[in-house]
């Protein structure tokens, strides 16, 4: 094929990330904060009035639009930011094994440490009323197995749970297949739930304790302070070596370090306004429940897993009691997670559309569809086994040193390694 010789003087076309995209990101931030302030200002007098006069159902009525709005806005921001910065937790571990690149892992560490600082300050100042967060449980020695399966799954799926969401928003078909897999995996878990419950239950240790601080009987500020003190000098060193910045060639790119800081902030706002940091995967079980209840109601009724209500907490701002679980009902789990999920997809779609990069391509090698499906199923299974997905554990549990999250991470690493081996051997050749 005749090709044109390269034009002279036209070497690297580098789109410098800073100018437009940092401005764009910084513009996002006040918008988010202002929206949040407005919501609080609006809700405060309304809710105080209502809480005094009404009870129960009417409290819930006031809480619902607030939660829907908050979740959607936070999801929109998260999806947008992640798309612009190529933020993918799966890639962070995968690239370590695939390309010996630790850049993305440093970014993850920045996110975790920033979240640690923000959560601890918020706890000390009373901004976070529920600590540890709801839906966190005592550690189980079976957690690494969940982590490992999740690690394999996220690499095979080409993205973790949030990655698959925002990528679906940009038109990625493998990511959509992964989402379907997540629902299927949750449905499979429902079948084995009683068995897993007994295995997991037998492996629980330090019952009643969730975080490292609780286990040691010390003030949470101590482990948080130690982690931050150990990390900060490393961060400064990395900064000096220019290890936080990467050159970008895509339009509208956002530097990952800025994305990490913004996402930590979003996690904080979520913890304050909704009651917990970003969590998503119980909703996949709920989606599976809805499908199963419609298709085979008798079998659905027999599954104990769908009847459980593990989420029970009092909303920190409105005082409403919220309860929910993985069943088909539109309960607190749906209220907390559905807006977030839809928001992230929409955020990815918005970001891609603004750049003219939304596109759906269907003619892909068949084994990629299979990989995405298998990966999604594994993630669905593993997130139920480990009581949370990577986002929940890495961005919610680890910053407050929840032991279950630490154990999940212990399994995640070898899982990602194994997933990478499978990916390069069987999927992309």
């Amino acid at each position, binding site marked *: 094929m005749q090709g044109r010789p390269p034009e002279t003087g036209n070497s690297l076309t580098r789109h410098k990330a800073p100018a437009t995209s940092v401005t764009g990101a910084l513009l996002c931030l006040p918008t988010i904060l202002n929206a949040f302030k407005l919501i609080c200002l609006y809700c405060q007098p309304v809710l105080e009035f209502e809480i005094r006069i009404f009870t129960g159902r009417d409290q819930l009525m006031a809480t619902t639009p607030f939660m829907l709005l908050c979740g959607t806005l936070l999801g929109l921001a998260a999806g947008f930011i992640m798309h612009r910065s190529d933020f993918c937790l799966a890639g962070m571990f995968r690239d370590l094994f695939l390309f010996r690149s630790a850049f993305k892992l440093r970014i993850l560490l920045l996110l975790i440490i920033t979240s640690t600082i923000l959560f601890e300050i918020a706890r000390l100042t009373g901004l976070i009323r529920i600590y540890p967060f709801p839906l966190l449980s005592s550690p189980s020695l079976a957690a690494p197995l969940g982590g490992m399966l999740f690690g394999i799954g996220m690499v095979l799926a080409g993205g973790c749970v949030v990655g698959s969401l925002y990528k679906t928003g940009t038109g990625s078909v493998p990511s959509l297949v992964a989402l379907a897999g997540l629902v299927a995996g949750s449905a499979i878990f429902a079948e084995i739930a009683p068995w897993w419950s007994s295995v997991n239950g037998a492996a629980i240790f330090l019952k009643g304790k969730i975080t490292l601080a609780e286990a040691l009987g010390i003030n949470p500020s101590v482990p948080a302070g130690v982690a931050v003190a150990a990390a900060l000098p490393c961060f400064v060193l990395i900064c000096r070596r220019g290890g936080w910045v990467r050159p970008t060639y895509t339009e509208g790119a956002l530097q990952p370090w800025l994305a990490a800081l913004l996402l930590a902030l979003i996690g904080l706002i979520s913890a304050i306004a909704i009651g917990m940091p970003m969590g998503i995967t119980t909703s996949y079980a709920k989606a599976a429940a809805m499908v199963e209840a419609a298709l085979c109601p008798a079998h659905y009724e027999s599954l104990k897993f769908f009847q459980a209500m593990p989420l029970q907490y009092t909303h920190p701002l409105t005082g409403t009691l919220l309860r929910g679980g993985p069943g088909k009902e539109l309960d607190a789990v749906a209220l907390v997670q559905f807006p977030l999920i839809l928001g992230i997809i929409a955020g990815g779609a918005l970001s891609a559309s603004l750049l003219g990069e939304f596109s759906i391509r269907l003619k892909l*090698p068949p084994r990629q569809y299979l990989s995405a499906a298998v990966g999604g199923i594994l993630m669905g299974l593993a997130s139920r086994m480990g009581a949370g997905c990577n986002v929940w554990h890495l961005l919610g549990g680890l910053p407050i040193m929840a032991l279950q999250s630490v154990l999940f991470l212990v399994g995640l690493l070898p899982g990602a390694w194994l997933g990478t081996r499978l990916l390069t051997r069987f999927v992309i050749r």
Partner: protein
Amino acid sequence: MENVQTIEFDISGQICPSTLLVALREINRNINELNAGRVQLVFKTDNRDCTNTIPEAAGNMGLTVDVRKDDSCYTILVYKG
């Protein structure tokens, strides 16, 4: 002017990180031709992460990379500069 052969790869829509893996594989496969200036590689992708990573990776191998955006895709040209 020498005839430079252009080999094109369309990796749009594929599962992450296909673009990077295919690019690295093809660059390695054609490294001699690339270095001799007889061949240039073109990768068409919509994967932003890989688009941001390929230039440095190819640069480390002594090659030059041009990135251009066409419609909804990025076109990455790899050649010996």
